[in-house]
């Protein structure tokens, strides 16, 4: 090798040594500037009041005032909800839930594999879940009304569950040998391409009981003079239907790919051994797609917490505050220049979402990953 070449190699090597940094730095920098920095600034915002002053604006530091308002002040009904009187049996069920969270904790600490961070993580998870259980029972019983926190959780848990099962069912059907596979696959994917704002308006048209396309059907059932928008739960379900319509395609595509990627011979072996479709699904297919499914559900969970366009456009959060999600709550506060209040709601959402997503990731996602493959 000539000298010139050696110099070149030296330079190339230096570049090569730097490559690991070069590869990851753009991402880290972009996220620092456009995610971490806004996050820190918002943290400050959530502890201040926004005030207009001559020629600009001013942020007055108010400590935890904005949060206090949400949790125990004038916005409590809005954020947490209106509490109802809990009956004895409801207390018992709550106790049962909390007890099971405690049992889960105790078992972890008794397992001998407990670490400090793991322990703290599980403790936070258990505490938040207990608090949410208590909240759920107090605001969902006869005399209570859920606030934006519980409504968001309803959208997240019920919505994601429904979307997952429908998507799984469709993916299983589409994974069979069927005619027109490409058509179904493409068609089923379309809803996710429609802008959420558009979906919300489209559903407003469709759900119109007197001018919408299903109006004749409603009036056939004598429902022409019935309005889903006036009933809290109906309105929430309509929002959920719109959200599901949009997001089932995403889960559908991911699950379909996973099902089609599973080793065929495992299924055949089970079929030879006499397993029917249900056994094949339960024992072979599902375990093999569990890891992918967990990731997809986690992505969906993260997005579901941010639901805003549908309730905003379908009902503007009404009737009352029945369909208002936390993001919408935050957005409405934003719109009236209550930036501090808006950021406080946003931060509370961030906290709940992080605890739930991280718990899911650690306690459900990891398990499937460990078992699978």
């Amino acid at each position: 090798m000539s000298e010139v070449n050696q110099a070149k190699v030296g330079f190339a090597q230096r570049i090569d040594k730097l490559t690991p940094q070069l590869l990851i730095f753009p991402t880290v920098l972009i996220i620092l500037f456009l995610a971490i920095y806004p996050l820190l600034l918002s943290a400050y915002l959530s502890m201040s009041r926004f005030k207009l002053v001559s020629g600009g604006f001013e942020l007055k530091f108010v400590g935890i005032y904005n949060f206090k308002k949400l949790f125990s002040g004038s916005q409590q009904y809005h954020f947490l909800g209106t509490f109802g009187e809990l009956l004895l049996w409801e207390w018992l069920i709550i106790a049962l839930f909390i007890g099971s969270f405690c049992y889960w904790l105790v078992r972890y600490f008794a397992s001998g594999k407990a670490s400090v961070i793991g322990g703290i993580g599980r403790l936070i998870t258990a505490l938040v879940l207990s608090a949410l259980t208590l909240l759920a029972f107090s605001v969902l019983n006869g005399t209570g009304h859920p606030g934006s926190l519980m409504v968001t959780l309803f959208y997240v848990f019920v919505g994601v569950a429904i979307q997952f099962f429908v998507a799984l069912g469709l993916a299983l059907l589409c994974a069979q040998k069927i005619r027109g596979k490409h058509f179904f696959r493409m068609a089923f994917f379309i809803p996710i391409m429609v802008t959420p704002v558009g979906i919300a308006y489209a559903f407003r048209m469709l759900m119109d009981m007197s001018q919408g396309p299903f109006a004749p059907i409603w009036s056939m059932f004598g429902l022409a003079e019935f309005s889903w928008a006036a009933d809290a739960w109906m309105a929430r379900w309509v929002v959920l239907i719109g959200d599901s319509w949009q997001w089932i395609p995403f889960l559908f595509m991911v699950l379909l790919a996973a099902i089609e990627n599973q080793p065929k011979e495992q299924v055949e072996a089970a079929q030879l051994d006499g397993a029917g479709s249900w056994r094949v699904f339960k024992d072979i297919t599902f375990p093999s797609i569990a890891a992918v499914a967990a990731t997809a559900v986690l992505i969906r969970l993260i997005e579901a917490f941010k639901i805003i366009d549908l309730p905003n456009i379908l009902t503007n959060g009404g009737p009352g505050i029945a369909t208002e999600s936390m993001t919408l709550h935050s957005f409405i506060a934003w719109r009236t220049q209550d930036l501090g209040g808006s950021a406080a709601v946003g931060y509370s959402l961030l906290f709940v979402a992080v605890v739930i997503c991280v718990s899911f990731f650690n306690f459900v996602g990891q398990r499937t990953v460990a078992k699978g493959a």
Partner: protein
Amino acid sequence: MRLLKKSPTFNLGKLAAGVTAASAMVLALGANTVQAKKFDGVTVNVMTFTGPQIAEPLQRHAPEFKALTGATINIITVPFSDLYTKLLTDFATGTNSVDAAVFAPQWVVDYADPGYLQDISANVAKDKALEESDISPFFRSFSTQYKGKTYLLTLDGDFHMIYYRTDVLKEAGLAPPNTWDEYLAIAKAVNGQDMNGDGKPDYGSCISKKRNAQAYWAVMSIAGGYLQSQGTSQGAFFDTKDMKPLVNNDAFAAALHIYKETSKYAPADEINLDVGDTRGLFTAGRCALTIDWGDVGTLAIDPNSSKVIDKVGAAMLPGSTKVLNRDTGKLETCTATSCPHAVDGINRAPYAAFGGWSGGINAAADDKVKQAAYEYFSYVSQPAQSNKDVTIGATGFNPYRLSQFNNMQGWLDAGMSKEAAENYLGAIKDSLNSPNMLLDLRIPKNQNYQQVVLDTALARYLAGEIDVNQTMETIEEGWDELNEELGKAEQLELYKATLGL
């Protein structure tokens, strides 16, 4: 973008820009014979909400204005619900990408106080073509002035009225309502009749009650007659003595009751209708009564969408025979002293809800731009343009000039029958001339008082989450909290100022 300047693509862009500029110069030389105009090369960015209403006439007049003065008017539109924040963010952060805007006069307090808006008192005083004296006094003062200075130019006149179906009421042998009880009675009597000949039962009353929309104006329209009886300067939102919210008393309770009662004779999903929906229903002939701004009058004669051409009557908002005694919090029957403005024992307080779209100018813009912006708003507002615009439903502009009320011809040209025009303009005139007109809230953060606290409580009340008393307590508590936060004394001072005290 400085970072990008080194890249070759950017140079290409520059080159392209150069070529364009060169060709533009050639064109300009060719057109040398045309005289140079006052505002050549000036561009004014005007923001408003997305049309066709309001934005449409602004866009339509822009080329005319350019031909006249050379100024380019660039209309930027954002959704209505985001306009307030969008403007405020633009002003407050010093972005100043917006040179002028057309917005609700209520917001002027939030914009003018920190000095974002240009004081145009001097311009208005000098402006002959504007014919300011032709503008109805209410729109001249309330819609444009703040603390004695003029910040806005009126482009539109807005307040609440009721509309009724003349044919339906006639058939039922009923007169237009004078009190809210009569309103309810009529709604009840005609509810379920087929009013547009499609064989399906229609509704007695349609009022926009959607949350985060326009519901909170309607409830004040009802409450006005119960709350305010001593003339405009009495105010109906707060007690001018101590800034005590006037929302927890028998008057407000009565208004809430009526407000909810109207839902019985309304579409089932009224709770999810915004004003656009109710207008659609009314012009489709599906409602006998509605509370709305001037728009319905012109929309009803639009042959593209209306099925009720010449079947619509307008009237001043109904009133009440009982009014609030602010000392006791109880309702008392009208007497000569308690209701000096009552007619036939009925106290009415027509509600100047919203107040009409008006144009304001960013104080931080260049002088030349500010001048051009002013002249543009003036141009749009001048009778030559405005008198035609207000008769077109699609513009969203409603009459605000005396000449518009008095000169019937424009309305007849637009397709209204003489009778309807008289009725429509009469209702507007009656409302405007009322000495007991109820002014909209115009103190700092009025958005928070109305759109957040009042609106949310109303929505929960309608949804059955809380009862009348809880509703009133919630509103009172929320308003008190805002008062405390913003300074009770200052708010009271400003409130009194808007009432002319």
